[in-house]
């Protein structure tokens, strides 16, 4: 089967409230949605979120990469049906192998672009066959349980947000931190959430090794489960390893884990205890499966993270993966209209009380994308293949 056309939507969907962490404040989602059509008329959607401080991609460079590299690779490929296999990597192999992993020009990896196209292809091919992604990524659990997040801000805001998350029944909460006085915010969050809650912190690389070890020491009495990306991403992993060895809180690699080579080095140099896998950051479903496998083989645990501002498209892909992976320690995402003023799917896709969410069973990703919402929030559309001809 050939892929006849592709449309890239660069979106700007406003947030209900500002989301902030060490390196960024966001008021809207800058998601890239890719729509592909197969020769038999099936349509599929994928999504990626370019993050210059993570993969080095921008919206512009991701869109250019899709147009100039990924689309030509897809357009000339002949795709067979996706067949459920015991090993989902085998089932996804033909899609995975048709999409190159590339870097260059200051970009660590064009993974957001690749993820958007990979997911769109998988969705389209499965819709063409009228089977659900859950047949490929067989769920190991009936529902997925998500965790909440508290962005950077004042102590009062953190406590208020914690009260909201407690009311939602969430027991896993991640708190963004960037300075020493954030210990007070964590105390306030712990007080609101109670002793039963599992708290994590994420510094997005805000500290040097010594400062990270110091703050970890102060945070220890608050029983923090994981310290995510305490130091900035560097080629040299010694800082991250120093924190891992000097802190009582297990360390999770996020920005330091973009490619499979990053993962191997993190394992070889024993620089972290956890991986944070994110579908967009890591280049799609298949790369995440490989990274999860690598983590398990190395005796590391992993979190399945998400992108702030992701729509139901990426959330659906993430949810299938979360349901399939053997033991994700924590799962993030599916905020939907809790964060976005409007989501792109007909089905409300955010999690419910306790962070619980069911696994979609309809064909492909299992959601119905509302094209009028894409059109409404798109600030750029690029038509390729047959779509380009029809819009010429």
């Amino acid at each position: 089967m050939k892929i006849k056309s592709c449309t890239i939507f660069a979106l700007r969907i406003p947030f209900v409230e500002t989301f902030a962490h060490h390196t960024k404040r966001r008021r809207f989602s800058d998601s890239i949605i890719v729509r592909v059509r197969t020769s038999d008329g099936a349509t599929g959607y994928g999504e990626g979120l370019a993050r210059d401080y993570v993969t080095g991609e921008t919206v512009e460079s991701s869109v250019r990469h899709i147009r100039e590299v990924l689309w030509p690779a897809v357009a000339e490929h002949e795709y067979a049906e996706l067949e459920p296999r015991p090993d989902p990597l085998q089932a996804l192999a033909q899609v995975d192998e048709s999409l190159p992993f590339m870097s260059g020009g200051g970009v660590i990896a064009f993974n957001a672009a690749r993820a958007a196209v990979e997911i769109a292809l998988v969705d389209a091919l499965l819709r063409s066959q009228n089977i659900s992604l859950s047949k490929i990524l067989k769920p190991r659990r009936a529902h997925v349980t998500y965790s909440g997040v508290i962005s950077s801000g004042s102590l009062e805001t953190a406590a208020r947000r914690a009260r909201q998350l407690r009311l939602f029944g969430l027991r896993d909460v991640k708190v963004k931190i960037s300075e020493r006085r954030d210990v007070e915010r964590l105390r306030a969050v712990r007080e609101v959430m109670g002793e039963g809650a599992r708290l994590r912190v994420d510094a997005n690389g805000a500290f040097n090794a010594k400062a990270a070890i110091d703050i970890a020491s102060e945070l220890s009495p608050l029983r923090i489960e994981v310290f995510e990306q305490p130091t900035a991403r560097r080629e040299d992993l010694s800082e991250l390893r120093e924190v891992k060895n000097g802190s009582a809180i297990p360390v999770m690699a996020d920005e330091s884990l973009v490619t499979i080579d990053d993962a191997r080095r993190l394992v070889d140099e024993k620089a972290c205890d956890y991986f944070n896998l994110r579908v967009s950051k890591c280049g799609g479903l298949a790369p995440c499966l490989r990274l999860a496998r690598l983590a398990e083989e190395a005796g590391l645990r992993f979190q399945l993270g998400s992108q702030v501002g992701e729509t139901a498209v990426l959330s659906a892909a993430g949810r299938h993966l979360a349901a399939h992976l053997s033991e994700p320690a924590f799962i993030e995402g599916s905020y939907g209209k809790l964060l976005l003023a409007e989501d792109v799917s007909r089905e409300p896709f955010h999690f419910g009380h306790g962070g619980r969410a069911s696994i979609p069973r309809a064909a492909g990703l299992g959601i119905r994308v509302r094209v009028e919402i894409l059109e409404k929030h798109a600030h750029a559309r690029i038509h390729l293949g047959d779509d380009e001809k029809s819009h010429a």
Partner: protein
Amino acid sequence: MNLRSLVEAEYLKQADGFSASAEFRALESGRAGASDYDLFISGVCRSHLKSPHILAFLFALAPPAEAEKLKQNMLEELGLDGEGVSHPSLLVELMLAAGFDEEKRARIWSEAEEELRSIITAPILFGTLTELGLSVLLETVAFEWVLSRLAARMAHFLRDHRHLPQAGLAWFHHHAEVDLRHAEEGLEAVELYASFYEMDARDAETILELTFRQNVFIRRYFGVKGIQGTEPGAEQKVIGLRGV
């Protein structure tokens, strides 16, 4: 502050935010285009055509002391009280006065139904019906409270700038008059509800915050575009992409 004071303060903030919004001011000053008035009318109709269903839900959850009042509200909304004018029929009159053809009216009905469907199918974030009910009650009373203060101004700008006849504006006149009473009763209903179900004061306050994270009037009457902020540099990004 007690719950009633917090709720009133929030309603005032909502009313001020709505009436001070660029969209409202453009409609009131006559600077808005004809299509903007029609979008506003569509938003109002979409938001309120299904109000009887919401009231029925609240009736089911009402504390005994409040049930009779809510039943009366619901009957009034359905036109089954003494006056015999259903509120959805007033909205249909509004659409007819605005010259909306059958197809457009059907589309707005369908959007109102879809909105209700979306509410019903969305995963519930709260742990109990008590909490969900308070959130729905707070938003419903907010509409009565704010409309009692702003509906007359809305009717005026639709009369002056969209040139709608008085008969077509009955829905606004009705809410401007009747909801002064409903708005006060509504605040009492919120207090009674929280008290009857022995809700924790902090939880009730949190539900209030969650219910009004956005200005619900701007969101419902003007849509997402109305709440969209301008991000510095956004235009440059668009221009940058045009060259891709």
